[in-house]
């Protein structure tokens, strides 16, 4: 079966006074039907911009320079604004990292949910009163689905009347209102406490199973990926450096950056063992030299790394952007 989302050679740049920042440089992403794909990377790695590009949310001074974004076989870049609007929100939905700033503080939760249904739900009755009633019922049903108690009365409340975890649920509810085929969750739990984070992530997993949708989970937490994602893609400085089934990538990472990330997080199971920070910093994305972008921080670098490195197949389902990958690196 063909992939639900197939991004090829995506390049998104931002024109700034200091120069052109290439935030996403030649990224390929494939999201299969029903799977949960984890996107891991640090700030500035391009993980959020990649999916903002998919959603057509990149605004000036940013622009998509090159690439194809095929969703269900259609290139989203070739659609008109009107056609794109019909896809966005209905077939692909996105939740933002910070629910407090993403929700409109001046509108009730019910109004914000109704907005999505009005725009996209074609099954609603035409008559005004019946329509209003149907929207209200559907909204309450969705709030119930994401685990908000007494949804009927909470529809008339404002975002500030909810806790952080509840606001994140409301944003997920709005995203799920039209039962999308693909949910892009951008750091859905970064601002939340661990006990609440566990609730929200389980909610996303449950709903994914129930509705059979695909999920892209953007995160910086490898633990979250290990527990919730089928496959994982690791990004560094605007490029994909490694991709593969989660258990394989975490069990035996191919790229030195992935190894570095795994070695630098304190792990409860490995208590007593030292952590090994990755020295140095992420390179400036303006005028990057045409070499491996991890070169300056890599422990295994050689002179051959001073040439551009392409992503290559290193296993049946695995890819990595490293000349040493696939060889014995242990």
């Amino acid at each position, binding site marked *: 079966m063909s992939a639900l989302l197939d991004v090829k050679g995506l390049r998104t740049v931002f024109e700034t006074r200091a120069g052109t920042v290439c935030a996403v440089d030649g990224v390929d992403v494939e999201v299969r039907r029903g799977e949960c794909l984890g996107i891991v990377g640090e700030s500035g790695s391009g993980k959020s911009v990649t999916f903002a590009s998919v959603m057509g949310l990149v605004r000036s001074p940013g622009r998509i320079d090159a690439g194809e974004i095929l969703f269900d076989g259609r290139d989203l870049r070739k659609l008109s604004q009107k056609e794109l609007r019909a896809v966005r929100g209905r077939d692909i939905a996105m939740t933002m990292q910070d629910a407090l700033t993403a929700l409109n503080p001046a509108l009730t939760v019910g109004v914000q949910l109704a907005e999505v249904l009005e725009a996209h739900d074609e099954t609603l009755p035409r008559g005004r009163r019946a329509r209003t009633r149907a929207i209200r019922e559907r909204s309450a049903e969705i709030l119930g689905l994401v685990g908000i108690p007494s949804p009927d009365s909470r529809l008339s409340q404002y975002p500030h009347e909810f806790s952080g975890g509840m606001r994140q649920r409301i944003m997920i509810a709005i995203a799920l209102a039209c039962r999308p085929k693909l949910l892009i969750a951008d750091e859905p739990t970064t601002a939340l406490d*661990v006990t609440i984070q*566990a609730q929200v992530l389980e909610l996303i997993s449950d709903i994914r199973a129930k509705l059979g949708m695909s999920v892209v989970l953007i995160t910086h937490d490898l633990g979250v990926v290990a527990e919730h994602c089928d496959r994982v893609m690791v990004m560094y400085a605007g490029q994909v450096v490694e991709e593969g089934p989660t258990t394989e990538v975490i069990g035996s990472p191919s790229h030195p950056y992935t190894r570095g990330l795994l070695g*630098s997080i*304190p*792990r*409860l199971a490995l208590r007593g063992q030292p*952590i090994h920070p990755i020295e140095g910093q992420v390179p400036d994305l303006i005028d990057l030299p045409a070499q491996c972008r991890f070169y300056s921080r890599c422990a295994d670098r050689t002179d051959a790394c001073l040439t551009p490195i392409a992503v290559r197949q290193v296993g049946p389902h695995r890819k990595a952007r490293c000349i040493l990958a696939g060889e014995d690196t242990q």
Partner: protein
Amino acid sequence: MSTEPLLKVENLTKHYVGRLSLAQRLAREKPSVVRAVSDVSLEVRKGEILGLIGESGCGKSTLGRAILRLHEPTSGRVTFDGQEVTTLDPMALKDIRRRMQIIFQDPYASLNPRRTVAEIVGLPLKLHDLATSADDLRAKVIAIIERIGLKANQLDRYPHQFSGGQRQRIGIARALISNPDFIVCDEPVSALDVSIQAQIIELLLELKREMGLTYLFISHDISVIGYLADRVAVMYLGEIVEMGPVDAVLSAPRHPYTQSLMSAVPDVDHPGHAQRVRLTGDLPSPLDPPSGCKFHTRCPLAVDRCRSEAPISEDLGGGHRAACHRLHEKLSLLETA
């Protein structure tokens, strides 16, 4: 490591009382009270790292600040190296603060954007009269700035010219330049990316060894606390519910809250652990904390007694303490894996 406590906190309480409008006062309304920290006692021994863990709003930062009297405690006593901090007059308090410093969570908000690095890091030396001349001050600033991993030629730059990790290094330099004995580390790595987080953790550990420091390390990340702390205290709604040596608490947590906290941590090594405890609901408001045991509204093991009677912290041996009515029933939310 000596067993003599460097810092002793006894029954520390911090309440924030809300302001009333004139109309409310005329109507004799009672002001709202946020019970941020209630009756907390703990000791930090010389040379150790005490990890303080809890979710947002549990009062862990307030506790750290009340210890330094950055927020004036409502009641209770703090003793530092034999001297009672809570009753010191302003001049004596300033002197003792040379020895008790703090590193803040947000490296963006905690540095004055209009001062250069040299001014920010050198200020404690000026305040405490620790430099003999301008040259001496500059030399001391350069020494500490190089120690924490920046270069002397970066001294005249402003905070916005640095990355998050570098700013946190500047914050560390500012805390260390007065040669303190004790540092409250208030989530110093929470705002940083993983690879940078590890650099800062290692730097803090090296500095502790070199300078013989003692840390109260506040964090919401159990893995970080498990990595660096000697002992750990778990806070929930302003109270310490469990405390003890880090190995004992993390390998055999006794309080149901600690157990659920640990099972909620997404784990690279044991993905999909079936033993997850689902805590339902949110943290109750500290404006109106639940009666009895404050955890009873979310506790899967709660019984009637928990709703009416607050549990008292019990000694479980080896310095491990926990406050729960059902401690001795050997119940565990975590199935043995």
